[in-house]
């Protein structure tokens, strides 16, 4: 099966052709936001970090920003720095330039005040936009798709209906040679028995189990009951009593597709089939991890409802909770409540998801995109040392 996508210099394919305005440090977030606001196809990748970061923590932030700048949905990049932070704007631009030709950087302390920098940034992005407008989609195989699967604000309906429907999609895309990435390590706790037979290699299973144990150890070290954050108060109100129950529902998103690889946060999915990425359950951090792994689209199931999108990738919202669908209709892309009323089979729902993903890949906007939800954040892994 073929899809029309944007071909990138590094051999990957994008479903969007947008400009990433990436601040290297929180001090210039406002600049990035103002620049992006001045150009229709530009997104500000604002985050609270970039300063007071050392060692592996700094490297992970740098690497994730590099992965965003070289994301297949990004056609041009403007890196905006202040000038005294550890993440150097020019160094980041050089790293992104290994993958992209349309890059630029601007360091505020060497350029001017807010007004001048915003004007200059908009001018650079408008030049990029004129070039991007000339790019045309090319027909290529569906196997070039990498789809992230994620759940947030889960309730009883997620594990019974929407996640199994996504599982059918996962099986279909993997059978067509595509890639699916999943994370949410904390939300695999209790689902180990189901993961083992899906992993093609013992090392993959062991990597996943060790990742789960690390997350669980954090709760043990803090001497707290994980219940309260996992499941969250919303999950509990929605009928999920324990993390095991939430995990067993969450894992349905990969169906019975083979897990071919497992990578740490920031790692890339390189093989056809399902790849596990070690991410927290936090929705934004997970979206970052899945996008950094190469996801061009994120399928997001929810039972409680959530509006979140993501800067680098369209996020498609699915729910099988008919009440929340009616209440937050504009935030959803697909209503799967028919699975619970017996009007829609899980297989039919999986086919609907497949068709929706193909349309989205060829340019149809997700509800989150239409509503301007293009959130972003970095994932910080060490305490502040200054």
């Amino acid at each position, binding site marked *: 099966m073929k899809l029309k996508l944007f071909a990138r210099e590094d051999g990957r394919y994008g479903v969007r052709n947008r400009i990433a305005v990436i601040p290297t440090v929180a001090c210039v977030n406002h600049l990035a936001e103002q620049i992006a606001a001045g150009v229709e196809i530009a997104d500000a990748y604002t985050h609270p970090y970039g300063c007071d970061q050392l060692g592996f923590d700094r490297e992970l932030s740098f690497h994730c920003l590099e992965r965003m700048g070289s994301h297949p949905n990004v056609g041009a990049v403007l890196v905006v720095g202040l000038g005294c932070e550890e993440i150097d704007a020019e160094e980041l631009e050089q790293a992104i330039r290994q993958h992209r030709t349309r890059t630029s950087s601007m360091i505020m302390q060497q350029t001017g005040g807010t007004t001048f920098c915003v004007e200059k940034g908009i001018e650079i992005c408008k030049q990029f936009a004129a070039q991007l407008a000339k790019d045309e989609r090319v027909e290529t195989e569906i196997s070039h798709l990498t789809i992230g699967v994620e759940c947030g604000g889960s309730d009883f309906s997620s*594990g019974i209906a929407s996640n199994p429907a996504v599982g059918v999609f996962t099986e279909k895309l993997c059978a067509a040679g595509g890639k699916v990435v999943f994370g949410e390590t904390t939300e695999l706790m209790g689902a180990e028995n189901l993961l083992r037979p899906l992993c093609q290699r013992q090392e993959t299973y062991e990597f996943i189990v060790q990742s789960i144990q690390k997350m669980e150890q954090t709760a043990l070290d803090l001497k707290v009951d994980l*219940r309260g954050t996992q499941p969250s108060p919303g999950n509990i109100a929605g009928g999920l009593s324990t993390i095991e129950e939430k995990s067993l529902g969450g894992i349905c998103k990969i169906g019975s597709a083979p897990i071919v690889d497992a990578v740490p946060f920031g790692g890339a999915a390189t093989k056809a089939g399902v790849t596990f990425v070690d991410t927290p359950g936090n929705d934004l951090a997970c979206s970052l991890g899945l996008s950094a792994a190469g996801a061009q689209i994120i399928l997001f199931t929810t039972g409680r409802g959530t509006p979140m999108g993501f800067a680098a990738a369209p996020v498609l919202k699915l729910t099988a909770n008919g009440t929340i669908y009616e209440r937050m209709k504009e935030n959803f892309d697909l209503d799967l409540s028919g699975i619970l009323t017996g009007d829609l089979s899980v297989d039919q729902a999986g086919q609907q998801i497949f068709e929706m993903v193909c349309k989205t890949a060829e340019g149809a906007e997700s509800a989150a995109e239409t509503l301007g939800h293009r959130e972003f954040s970095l994932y910080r892994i060490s305490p502040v040392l200054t």
Partner: protein
Amino acid sequence: MKRAILLSAKDTVATALQAVLAGENVEVADRQNRICDRLTARSPIPQGHKIALREMAAGEKIIKYGQVIGQSSDPIHRGDWVHTHNMESLRGRGDLV
């Protein structure tokens, strides 16, 4: 009649698809829509929450999806609402360290 779904034949709880009042009869169906049990709710059960399919002593494993989702923290009767008030997680229990 109110409906609950049984996800695996081994399960000791089913998920109520509609809110159930105490004393109401509930029909339990599997994923293929085959009726496999009928019981009376002993307590109100909110939509999407679990109903016990059998008697359980405190400390018994509770099964859903054919897997362990935790254990009973109190005795549970068939027809009871099963949730955080009478079941607990076996994972991430730093409070018990």
